[in-house]
């Protein structure tokens, strides 16, 4: 029983990181119908920049975290301006944008490789003070609690922002129909840029949390989460933020339980993607995805 409880904690934790990563993906997709494949590279850079700020810059992690998140947000703006904005008037902007985002991913990754080297790097010891709570055989670290709390808080704030704030409403209006939004006097390009800012900032935050917990960062760490992030938003329902969170948790739990039951990590991805496949067969729009009401 305690093993199961511990495994649920393990899954909840990794699932919330997946969720946070996938929210950024799904936000851009919901607004633009475009997959931003450079998201994983921003995730990587977020972790590495935070590490650089702590290690070389000598900042405390509580200062380095928001700084690196802000940096990733700015990367998002750059991404929009370079990879997406120039293509927006083309009829096939969905595909060309996808391709140019792959190019940006390669550029970001090479930059990370050039700046930080190919080696696995770590945060210096005691970057965050870790307290471990034990209850019978159950162990939970304060870092895990902080990471889950930060993830859930960021996701909650984002949902509130989209539902209540004026800019959030504008984002949803653009998502609904950008032409109508423009007619209503919404500055569509600005809103899209802002969406990229938030999306990338969240991706960067996920990268920092991931790096902090596993304490092992390398320029290729985005690869391990890239496909999973995609699977999570498909599972949760494309464009749905609560869906991304739920999808992330479901994915994390299925991974952890697979490893726990089989005793090997080789089947981890196989089972996770089989779950995805089954959900798609039974419910093509994902767990929380709405059926397409009309084609634009």
């Amino acid at each position, binding site marked *: 029983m305690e*093993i199961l409880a*511990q495994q649920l904690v393990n899954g909840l934790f990794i699932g919330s990181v997946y969720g946070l990563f996938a929210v950024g993906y799904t936000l851009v997709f919901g607004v633009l119908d475009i997959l931003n494949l450079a998201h994983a590279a921003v995730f990587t850079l977020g972790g590495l920049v935070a590490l650089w700020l702590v290690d070389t810059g000598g900042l405390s992690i509580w200062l380095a975290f928001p700084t690196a998140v802000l940096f990733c947000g700015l990367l998002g703006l750059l991404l929009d301006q370079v990879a997406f904005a120039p293509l927006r008037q083309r009829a096939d902007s969905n595909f060309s944008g996808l391709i140019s985002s792959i190019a940006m991913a390669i550029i970001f990754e090479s930059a990370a490789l050039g700046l930080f080297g190919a080696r696995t790097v*770590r945060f210096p010891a005691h970057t965050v003070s*870790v307290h471990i709570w034990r209850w019978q*055989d159950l*162990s939970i670290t304060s870092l895990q609690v902080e990471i889950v709390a930060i993830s859930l808080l960021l996701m909650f704030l984002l949902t509130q922002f989209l539902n209540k704030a004026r800019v959030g409403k504008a984002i949803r209006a653009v998502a609904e129909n950008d032409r109508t939004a423009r007619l209503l006097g919404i500055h569509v390009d600005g809103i899209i840029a802002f969406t990229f800012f938030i999306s990338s900032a969240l991706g960067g935050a996920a990268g920092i949390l991931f790096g902090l917990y*596993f304490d*092992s960062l390398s320029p290729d760490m985005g690869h391990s989460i890239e496909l999973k992030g995609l699977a999570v938003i498909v599972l949760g329902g494309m464009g749905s933020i609560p869906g991304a969170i739920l999808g992330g948790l479901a994915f994390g739990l299925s991974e952890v339980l697979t490893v726990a039951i089989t005793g090997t990590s*080789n089947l981890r991805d196989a089972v996770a993607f089989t779950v995805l496949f089954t959900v798609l067969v039974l419910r093509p729009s994902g767990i929380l995805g709405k059926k397409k009401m009309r084609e634009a």
Partner: protein
Amino acid sequence: MNNIKRVLGIAVTFCLGLMLASGPLCPQTFAASKEAKIGFALSMTGGAAAYGATQKKGAQLAVDEINAAAGMDGLKIKAVFEDDASVPQQGINVFQKLINADKVSMIIGPTLSNTAKVTDRIAQKAGMPVLGVSNTAPGITEIGNYIFRDSLTEAVVIPHTIKVAKEKFGLKKVAVFYGNDDAFTKGGYHAFMKALKDNGLTVVTEQTFAKGDRDFSPQLTQIKSKKPDAIIVSALVEEASGIINQARQLGIPNSVPIIGGNGFNSPALIKNTGEASEGVVIGAAWNITSALPMNKKFVADFTAKYGNAPDQFAAQAYTGVYIAYNAIKKAGSTTNHKAIRDALAKTKDLDTVLGKYSFTSGRDAGYTPIVQIVKDGKFAVLGE
């Protein structure tokens, strides 16, 4: 244009003539200067560059010491360092050059087992003695009777580690955790399993991970629930660091030792894991704290010369040069490769920084490995 070609042609002919003429003169020149050329094929660039760099430092230190001690008339060493770029293709070029152009007495290297499997065949065919100083994969010395190595294989280190750990901790049941998609970690796993069986230990659970995994908590949670006396881990240092950290975070106490092989034997392990590494047990070919006077001097000289402490690879390269020098001296010739080979094979109870050194009948390293435990953030000797 034509003129340039002609000049070039003459120059080439002239050079070739010189080379031919100097051929027969060579042995006399060597005899006069009493110098043995040793070729070093080390990975200075590419994936194994970190290992190659420390090997070169260790070898250079040994060469400098030997040449200083040789004085005016003694046999000196001329080291020819070449970079095999961590790939077999470049290794072949380097071996061809050392054998045919430099005409070395023998070759030390290459850094990687993967490269050795290709290059050592060339040397065997050419009758050139090779001494590997870091190859641990099976099937290297089996290539032929000219191939030697002073690097202990996992097959020797691991059974010894298990034996010593069992005695010291009174182990009965253990958990095994290994990477099942890598030749090195899988080889380590097989060696561990055999040693566990030979020592009558029960394996309560076997768990695996894959290259690049960062989250080991599901497997470690399963391991914890079986309450083993020790956890046997076959992993490289990056994964090992994650495993040790996460095991301690999950509440597996430091009194349950985590036991690893050569992959653990790096100062990076302690740096990466900090307090979590206390009580980690590592079987190794060499230990920096070994009390041998020769080893103490080596560590002090190395640190003075390069400003950082030596590691296992430096120690093995350093030892390799002494073994080679000893054999060439005993052979009484720098050009008779057969005599050098025979002298190498006869190396017996040579005092080295690794311990009393002999070759086994299979031309592998023959000396007792060391078992270390991490104590107060440092490697200490658990037993021999």
